[in-house]
């Protein structure tokens, strides 16, 4: 059970660190809200139009917010050397990294889900679609964090990793975006969306099992 204790300790530590810097925690949410606000200004405020593209807007914005928040996943640990300590520990690195990813999702992914209903209201989304939107966000944003962790682990050693990170990570986000926004669109049309939800769930399971492995290999490469 030492592994479980280490796993929980990692999550606890990262959550405490995040709460010590509450201002930084707000940034992804603010970014999310601002990007969604920009769309009506850009495409025009016709309710009909906004309603039809709302799922896409919210999901693309959530995706960008998740991607921009990724940099904080390993950055401070890399700078102060605690990442090396993490890799030196006797426990499997991939499990410990999974802990870090979960903590990161709790700090950056969960708030997105909490503000999503507000934004859905801005864009005039129906209640049925809203429920599906929340479901897809609950299933989809952890996948974004998990897959993104591979990208950050590869680029954490670079001084200017930001642009390259988006180039690496965004193509891998395509399936999540497709199924999630499609599910919401279908739901607003009153169609069943079980298939999309199930596929998102399958992707989450797959990412949960597989993503920490390349992420830990990449971290070892970045640190060495």
């Amino acid at each position, binding site marked *: 059970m030492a592994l479980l204790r280490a796993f929980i300790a990692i999550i606890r530590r990262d959550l405490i660190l995040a709460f010590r810097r509450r201002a930084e925690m707000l940034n992804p949410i603010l970014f999310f809200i601002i990007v969604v606000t920009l769309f009506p200004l850009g495409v025009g405020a016709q309710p009909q139009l906004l309603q039809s593209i709302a799922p896409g807007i919210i999901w693309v914005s959530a995706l960008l917010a998740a991607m921009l928040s990724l940099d904080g996943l390993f950055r401070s640990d890399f700078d102060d050397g605690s990442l090396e300590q993490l890799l030196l520990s006797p426990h499997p690195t991939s499990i410990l990294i999974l802990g870090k990813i979960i903590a990161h999702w709790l700090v950056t992914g969960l708030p997105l889900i909490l503000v999503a209903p507000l934004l859905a209201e801005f864009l005039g989304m129906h209640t049925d679609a809203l429920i599906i939107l929340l479901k897809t966000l609950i299933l989809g944003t952890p996948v974004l964090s998990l897959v993104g962790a591979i990208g950050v682990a590869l680029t954490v050693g670079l001084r200017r*990793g930001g642009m390259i990170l988006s180039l690496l990570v965004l193509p891998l986000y*395509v*399936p999540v975006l*497709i199924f999630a926004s*499609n599910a919401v669109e279908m739901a607003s049309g009153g169609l069943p969306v079980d298939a999309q939800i199930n*596929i998102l769930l399958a992707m989450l399971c797959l990412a949960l099992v597989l993503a920490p492995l390349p992420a830990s290999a990449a971290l070892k*490469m970045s640190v060495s």
Partner: protein
Amino acid sequence: MFLIPKPVGKFFHRMASPPYFYDFTGRLIPWLSWIFLFLVIAGLYGGLVLAPADYQQGDSFRIIYIHVPSAWMSLFVYVVMAIAGGIGLIWRIKLAEIVAISSASVGAGFTFIALVTGSLWGKPMWGTWWVWDARLTSELILLFLYLGVIGLYGAIDDKRTASRAVAILALVGVVNIPIIHYSVEWWNTLHQGPTVTKMDKPSIHISMLWPLLVMAVAFKFYYVIAMLQRARTELVVRERNSQWVKLLLESK
């Protein structure tokens, strides 16, 4: 190792040595180039002259002799890159790393050619340069994956580390390519259904098929030639401080 015949194992051991690889591929490339030239001339002659014009598309179908082989190669090269990267990652064979990264730019080139020829064909056939067809979209995303690999390699200064990073990324990409491909296909069929973009596939006539297959083989040879030339350059750059490269430069 007992499963692998001894001469084969010995061959791979020797190929893992940079001077031997450099020397061997230097002698191999002229042969490959002649075979490539022969195949490409035969394939183009068969495709552009001997094959009859399509009853619907006329002569514009002939672009498939470039388009289809490069689209096949774009996927093939990605898989080769991932396998070579995996070998480099596991056994730390320097040459596998070099083969992986040398494949990336060639593969990106094939992907780009497939996209450009596809859109050139699409203009007269569909009346538009670009449609959000499932295949086009997944090919575009494949191009982004290649560019990510090349960008990551360029961003890391230490090239051994960069090779490992690229190998991990390529392996992640290989797992993702089927998922991306099927999700894009599903997205497309759900949105609009196969209307304009569905190529009805009558079983292609043999006179049109053989040039296509010849071209596909020719493209394989082209890939090997281009990849080996890049690999040789990369090898010399990486090994510039070693004795054999100094001897090589002196002898030139």
